[in-house]
């Protein structure tokens, strides 16, 4: 191509020194053919197929028209700049394709399995559930599984966006696409390649662009009408003024040719989807999977965010917040409670045992009775211990003081005497307050839905500064409430629901934008949601909104810029104020600038 460009320029310069017109014309035409023969041949092929509004064809008509008007330098210049522009455009497209393939580099190429005591590399797709695979340091984990042996550090950045390596030991779940850093791991495969995390992410990102956003649909429609309209305008400009006002044919035809050069909507057709792809790709780098351009677009119009409480705002794990003992040490009280609850698997029992930490000598526990819905009675270290709610103590006629603390209260009585209580509650996730604050700053309303009791919900609402809350809801109530919220919003406003996918899949699916937190592992959440946040970090929502706003800003810039320049040059052209050079810029120049701008969407800091 460079050779052709140089040759054309040399011929062009040479032609200027030749006095004899005929020779001069021949050299000009030679220069034109050198630079434009492939465009011409493609144009002919396209006409044979009945494809009239093809870019090649329009360029050919425009330049042949210029030659017919004996405007040789213009004809050559248009071809030359069109070709240079196309080359640049290809380069830009290739570059962006490369950045996108880089995102896809999480695809594992092989898995090591043991055959006759030797490690062999096989295609991950051929490994079955239950097979044992080996991952050496520095290698990508090819399939999801459970670590059987080996302690190592794991780089999970490509999957979760989390930059701090995680330590991993036998028994841990391990996700495909992560990188083993230190030592050999032996992994039992739990999912086939099709269902593996890495394959799901790849499919999701690749297919995301097929769900088109409104902006993209607008561009497709625009492109369909734009070219024919501009071509007919060109025809009208070439024919009508000379016939009506009797101007010179040459003058009006050359103005019409300018129209033809600008008639391709390429800049828009290429840069808008590219911006969305960039935004989705950039988000996936941060561990935010967006299932379609339409969701990325909708996210920028979020006006209400509805949060599920347990597992989303809170960790969903009960933890002892306070021990209030009467007449004995706190540790003593905890010890009695832990011994009494020893055989129970209730979440509250588990949190008490977890806090106690010490080993339990089961010899010292006797006569255990579980009183359903109330608590447990047992003889521990020879003393009769009651651990349970207020109903239990009332039933046993034990006098006690009720507390105002908010959470689950476990009362304890030893030998019929009230000995204190343990306050257990769910913990807020990190960054929850900051996230709510940030949402409010962007004037996005926050709502919390929970099945939990009113008092607990109210405390969280006040702690976090959430605008509205609804408590003591059944799963179907959540859906009805969301319907209500969606009904009351403005026309272009969107409602996002953020949940962990446990029990709330229908709500996730119903929301304008369903965001599933901690998506790894919960398949139903990935299915039902539109956006999956791979980690448990709630502030990723802010990041997702930021990415969507940035992407949409770039999209709007490109639409306005490309259409604006084209229309401006069209008007100038019609008035005779624009030349072919400007037209070529409006075509390829604008495309290149729009592509470069679109690539910014991929760069997320």
């Amino acid at each position, binding site marked *: 191509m460079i050779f052709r460009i140089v040759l054309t320029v040399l011929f062009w310069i040479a032609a200027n020194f030749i006095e004899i017109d005929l020779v001069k014309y021949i050299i000009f035409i030679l220069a034109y053919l050198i630079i434009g023969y492939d465009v011409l041949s493609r144009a002919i092929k396209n006409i044979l197929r009945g494809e009239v509004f093809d870019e090649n064809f329009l360029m050919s008509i425009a330049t042949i028209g210029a030659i017919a008007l004996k405007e040789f330098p213009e004809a050559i210049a248009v071809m030359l700049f069109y070709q240079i522009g196309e080359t640049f455009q290809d380069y830009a497209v290739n570059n962006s394709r490369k950045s996108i393939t880089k995102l896809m580099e999480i695809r594992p190429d092989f898995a090591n399995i043991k055959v006759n005591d030797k490690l062999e590399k096989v295609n991950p797709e051929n490994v079955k559930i239950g097979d044992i695979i080996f991952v050496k340091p520095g290698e990508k984990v090819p399939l999801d599984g459970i670590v059987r042996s080996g302690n190592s550090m794991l780089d999970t950045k490509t999957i979760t966006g989390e930059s701090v390596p995680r330590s991993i030991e036998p028994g841990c779940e391990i996700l495909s696409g992560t990188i083993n850093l230190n030592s050999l791991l032996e992994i039992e495969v739990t999912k086939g390649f099709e269902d593996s995390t890495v394959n799901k992410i790849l499919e999701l990102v690749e297919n995301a662009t097929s769900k088109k956003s409104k902006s993209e649909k607008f561009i497709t429609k625009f492109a369909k009408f734009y070219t024919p309209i501009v071509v007919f305008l060109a025809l009208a400009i070439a024919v009508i003024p000379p016939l009506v006002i009797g101007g010179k044919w040459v003058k009006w035809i050359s103005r019409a040719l300018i129209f033809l050069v600008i008639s391709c*909507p390429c800049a828009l057709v290429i840069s808008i989807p590219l911006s969305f792809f960039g935004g989705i790709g950039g988000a996936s780098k941060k561990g935010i999977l967006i299932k379609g351009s339409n969701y990325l677009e909708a996210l920028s119009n979020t006006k209400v965010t509805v949060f599920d409480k347990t597992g989303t705002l809170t960790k969903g794990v009960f933890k002892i917040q306070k021990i209030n003992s009467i007449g004995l040490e706190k540790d003593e009280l905890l010890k009695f409670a832990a011994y009494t609850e020893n055989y129970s698997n209730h979440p509250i029992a588990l949190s008490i045992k977890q806090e106690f930490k010490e080993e339990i000598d089961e010899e010292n526990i006797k006569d255990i009775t579980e009183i359903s819905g109330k608590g447990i009675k047992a003889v521990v270290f020879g003393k009769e211990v009651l651990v349970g709610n207020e109903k239990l103590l009332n039933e046993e006629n034990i006098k006690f003081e009720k507390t105002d603390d908010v959470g689950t209260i476990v009362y304890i009585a030893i030998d019929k005497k009230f000995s204190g209580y343990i306050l257990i509650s769910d913990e807020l996730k990190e960054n929850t307050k900051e996230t709510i604050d940030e949402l409010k700053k962007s004037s996005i309303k926050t709502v919390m839905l929970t099945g939990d009791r009113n008092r607990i919900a109210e405390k969280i609402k006040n702690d976090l500064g959430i605008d509205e809350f609804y408590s003591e809801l059944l799963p179907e109530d959540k859906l009805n409430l969301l319907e209500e919220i969606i009904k009351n919003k403005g026309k272009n406003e969107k409602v996002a629901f953020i949940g962990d996918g446990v029990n709330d899949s229908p709500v996730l699916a119903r929301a304008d934008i369903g965001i599933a937190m901690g998506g790894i592992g919960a398949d139903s959440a990935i299915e039902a949601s539109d956006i999956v946040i791979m980690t448990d970090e709630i502030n990723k929502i802010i990041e997702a909104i930021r990415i969507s706003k940035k992407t949409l800003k770039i999209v709007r810039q490109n639409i306005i810029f490309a259409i604006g320049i084209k229309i401006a040059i069209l008007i100038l052209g019609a008035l005779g104020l624009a030349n072919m050079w400007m037209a070529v810029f409006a075509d390829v120049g604008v495309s290149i600038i729009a592509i470069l701008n679109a690539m910014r969407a991929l760069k997320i800091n």
Partner: protein
Amino acid sequence: MKKSFVLEGLDCANCAAKLEDKLNGIKGINEATVNFMTSKVTIEGEDEEFDEVMKRAIDIIKKYEPDAQIKY
């Protein structure tokens, strides 16, 4: 049924959009997408006559993108 393949040498975005339009006009195709960025064509069609549908799709691709190579 759904099938996707890479179309190498698909180098103009407008052509990709046009091709997508043409593919979606084929009888038996429920949805066709041409992803310009990944050069990937995905065709979703009726199960019973899927082979026939794919044949029609490939004919269209060859007609409109004679220089592109289909790679599975």
